[in-house]
């Protein structure tokens, strides 16, 4: 790489087409798409998401199948019905860790702009902050949803293939199964957006990832220590339990129904996103 003795060249070619309209959402979306596809962390995070989620789902299914195969026949007969009822959720268990990976990418999408200083450059070319942040959220959310759906469907089919060796699998046509598998993708996308919102609020990679993991994972673990009479009221509101209702197939009365739980989960993400947007507009960059 040499940069020696470069003459100053003519800077104005006036080759730019005449300006039309106003720089807005469309351009901002194209820009965000270029941004997200042109850094390696995006690919590493998405590969990690796919591998971790599918891998853990497959491992769970494999363990379950092994377990089942070693049962005496009378126990198998007894266990079969219950195993089939859990087959879908088991193949999707990788989402428990997958949510953390997408949370990392969600946070990074915005916090990496702060840590590198790119945010100042971005706002200097597109000072309409609402447009800027909305475009970023839409682009990231769409990618998270598409990759999340693919991950969820592959997890499901890989898991069922393993479980089917013992005939303890579910099938996609059974009631609630398709909803759960699509729900797995939706769950991942919303996890990512929740983390993105936290990133906009905190503007710091480590802080945002820690906050996301705290909300999504630690809160869920801590909820296990609650005394029963508290747990029945609080458990369903824990973000993971609310968001997980759509794919976990839980029928516990203490939990929300799938879509109600998912709506609550979306509500949490919306709070983070709106708070992030308000702060993003108000604060000095």
């Amino acid at each position, binding site marked *: 790489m040499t940069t020696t*003795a470069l003459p100053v060249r003519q800077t104005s070619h006036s080759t*730019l087409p005449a300006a039309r*309209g*106003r720089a807005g959402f469309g351009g901002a979306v194209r820009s965000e798409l270029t*941004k997200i596809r042109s850094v390696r962390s995006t690919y590493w995070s998405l590969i990690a998401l796919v591998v971790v989620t599918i891998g853990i789902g497959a491992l769970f299914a494999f363990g379950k199948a092994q377990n089942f195969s070693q049962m005496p026949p009378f126990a198998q007969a007894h266990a079969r019905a219950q195993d089939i009822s859990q087959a879908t959720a088991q193949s999707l268990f990788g989402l428990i860790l997958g949510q953390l990976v997408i949370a990392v990418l969600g946070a990074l999408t915005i916090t990496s702009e702060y840590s590198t200083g790119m945010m100042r450059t971005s706002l*200097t070319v597109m*000072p309409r902050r609402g447009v800027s942040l909305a475009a970023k959220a839409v682009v990231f959310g769409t990618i998270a949803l598409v990759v999340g759906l693919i991950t969820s469907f592959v997890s499901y089919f890989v898991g069922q293939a393993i479980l089917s060796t013992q005939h303890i699998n579910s099938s996609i046509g059974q009631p609630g199964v398709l909803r759960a598998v699509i729900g797995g993708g939706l769950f991942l996308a919303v996890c990512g957006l929740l983390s993105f919102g936290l990133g906009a609020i905190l503007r710091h990679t480590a802080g945002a990832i820690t906050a996301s993991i705290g909300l999504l994972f630690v809160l869920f673990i801590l909820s296990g220590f609650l005394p029963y009479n508290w747990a029945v009221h609080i458990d369903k509101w824990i973000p993971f339990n609310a968001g997980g209702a759509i794919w976990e197939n839980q029928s516990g009365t203490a939990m929300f129904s799938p879509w109600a739980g998912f709506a609550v989960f979306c509500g949490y993400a919306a709070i983070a996103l709106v708070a992030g947007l308000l702060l993003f507009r108000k604060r000095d*960059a």
Partner: protein
Amino acid sequence: MIEARGLTKRYGDTLAVDDLTFSVEPGKITGFLGPNGAGKTTSMRLILGLDHPTSGTVTVNGKPFAELAHPMREVGALLDAKAVHGGRSAYNHLLCLAETNNLPRRRVDEVLAMVGLTEVAGKRSKGFSLGMGQRLGIAAALLGDPAILMFDEPVNGLDPEGILWIRNLMKALAAEGRTIFVSSHLMSEMEHTADHLLVIGRGRIISDCTVAEFIAANSRQSVRVRTPQPGELARVVAAAGGSVHEDGDGLMVVQGLDVTQVGDLAFENAVRLHELAPAQASLEQAFMELTASSVQFHAGVPTERDREPAIAGKVA
């Protein structure tokens, strides 16, 4: 045209910019001069809407920056060349900026060629030298072919070749009729490039004049004299209406009289001279004197300017 009216920015207890009112006229290079911490960067951030003013307003071509239809087509700014994602290639960096303002893709290739980065367009900017990073920042500012360009300390840290390149670039851009607003803490940098000077110290405008006016007001003649009879000389000079002060090593600086007058005075009063020479106060010195009272952190060691009579206020 950039216009600031009563622009004020307070960060906690610190008043970074205090009631600035100025305008940057079109088609000229305006040097924005001040010591470190004077509020140059803050002012530029306020112009670009990166920071919200505590009070006052600033407009670009009559509108707040954020309301411009295509901001890149009107203002190109380079505040901090390091404000890029180092993991992104130069090309993609410029592309993602261009796309926000619906600028065509080929414009990215054009600006890369202008700053001489075509060969490294596909490389991640993480590995760029300071000079290359600066060129990338300038390429970004030129993307929209804007009539107004803002550069914050563009030569800071560059090698002589890089400095020359930036200087020539600014002249070339100005020759095309563009408005250039460039900050510096070095008078010498502005002396040969700027048309107009805006001097800022401790967040306030100290001087707003053309470079020619600044030179006329600040380049007072002085005379360097070496004599074994300093007391005698001081007396006759004072009697003739000049002022004198010792500069160490027996060297004396006379102000208010020219070389001929000092020589004649010495001859007439039989004061022995070992050296007699005209000295022109440099603009750097004038600038330092102008901002001396407004420098935020004085070094502990007394310097020449602390002892010299201040000539500030002349152009303020």
